């Protein structure tokens, strides 16, 4: 099955040498997407962490020890594993921009997509969202609340994309050709070190175009051929090797140009 081609492809480039692991992106994501706080969030099989920061280590000690932090949103794969397995087409990659959609009213909660995703980027609502009394007044208008029994995942703050298009129309611009920075997901907007860059990887005027093709750029699990739209950059070789140990190309180097 040939993957769809889009004129605009929203992608992220995350600089792992600048991510301090502070977790602001995780919090901003929770806030923007109305994810109810969990009383026992230490059970990682139950937390809804659309954006999740992993801790990587070079497994050395003392002054040789190094740690890196890797924020992982949904990869919005160019050739997603989750889309073909959905029995009800609750998830699809059919919109200009390449964001894989997840429609909550249609999802039946079978979780095949969760099994298919190699990045563990999809989460299941085991419970209805319970907010502490009064906190419903602090809900973001950008994302609907999901009942229990549906799968959810990062959607690059898609509502902000729609709002950016409206602003472009209001200002007399072209909603199909947004300027760099007109549309920023919550995580990219809030990162205090600016480790997360976001934009159209096919548009020469967006900074991610060059960043994604840099010599230190890599993608996770490149060899699976899912064509993820999230790139990582690190000057440290041990971090780059953790992407997929260079299995895709057999040697270190830049990730394949996003097709």
């Amino acid at each position, binding site marked *: 099955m040939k993957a769809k081609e889009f004129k605009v492809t929203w992608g992220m480039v995350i600089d792992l040498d600048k991510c301090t692991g502070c977790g602001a992106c995780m919090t901003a994501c929770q806030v923007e997407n109305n994810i109810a706080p969990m009383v026992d969030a230490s059970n990682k099989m139950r937390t809804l962490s659309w954006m999740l920061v992993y801790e990587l280590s070079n497994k050395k000690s003392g002054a040789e020890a190094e740690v890196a932090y890797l924020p992982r949103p949904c990869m919005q794969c160019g050739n997603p594993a989750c889309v073909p397995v959905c029995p009800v087409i609750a998830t*699809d990659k*059919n*919109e*200009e921009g390449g*964001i894989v*959609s997840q*429609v*909550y*009213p*249609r999802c039946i909660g079978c979780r095949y997509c969760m099994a298919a995703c190699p990045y563990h980027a999809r989460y299941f609502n085991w419970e209805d969202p319970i907010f502490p009394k009064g906190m419903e007044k602090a809900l973001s208008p*950008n*994302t*609907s*609340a999901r009942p229990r029994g549906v799968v959810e995942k990062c*959607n690059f703050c*898609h*509502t902000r994309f*729609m*709002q950016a*298009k*409206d*602003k*472009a*129309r*209001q*200002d007399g611009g072209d*909603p199909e050709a947004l300027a760099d920075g007109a549309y920023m997901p919550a995580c990219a907007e809030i990162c205090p070190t600016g480790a997360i860059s976001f934009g159209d990887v096919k548009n020469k005027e967006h900074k991610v175009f060059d960043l994604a093709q840099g010599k230190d750029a890599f993608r996770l699990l490149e060899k699976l051929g899912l064509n993820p739209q999230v790139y990582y950059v690190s000057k440290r070789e041990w971090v780059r090797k953790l992407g997929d140990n260079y299995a895709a190309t057999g040697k270190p180097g830049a990730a394949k140009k996003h097709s």
Partner: protein
Amino acid sequence: MDQKLQERWGEVMEEKKQCKGCGGALPFLIGFVAALIAGWVLFPNLLYSKKVQPIRFSHKIHQEQGMECASCHVFRDDGSYAGLPKNEKCQECHADVVGSDPAEKIYVEQYAQKDKEVPWLVYQYQPDNVFFSHKAHESFECKECHLEVGKMDTPPVYYENRLSGYSKQTMKMWQCERCHAENGVSNACHVCHK
């Protein structure tokens, strides 16, 4: 004895044969028509509850004052649409009672002066999971989707679906999809869902 039974049996069959034409189809037709009436007349009455707007707002009076649609229903700087105006807009004129209509008095006393927003019933109610952009639909006439309240003196009755909580005028997905398809606009899920 047998003969009498046989005769009686024949009579009954004759009776039956006589009514076959009407006794056969009539109950079916009765049931059919009754179901049609129940389905098309009774069911909607049961399903929809009638509600009235909290204030008997008259567009006609405001139009006669020289106001236009865009006086209250405007696009904001960020491209979002201020659908139903808030107290801030109404209070530009109605901070105090300026007319003689009792409805206005109710508004000023119960809402404006108490700093309480009017809980208008939205005819074109859409649930939280729908994203609709008025800006993208700017080129259409309002009346293509909305009731023409602009010329009305009283707001139309609001029919609320008792089961789903939606309004009778709430556009369902197929209506949006059809128009999108006719106009060559994407019907991708994310275009309308959030």
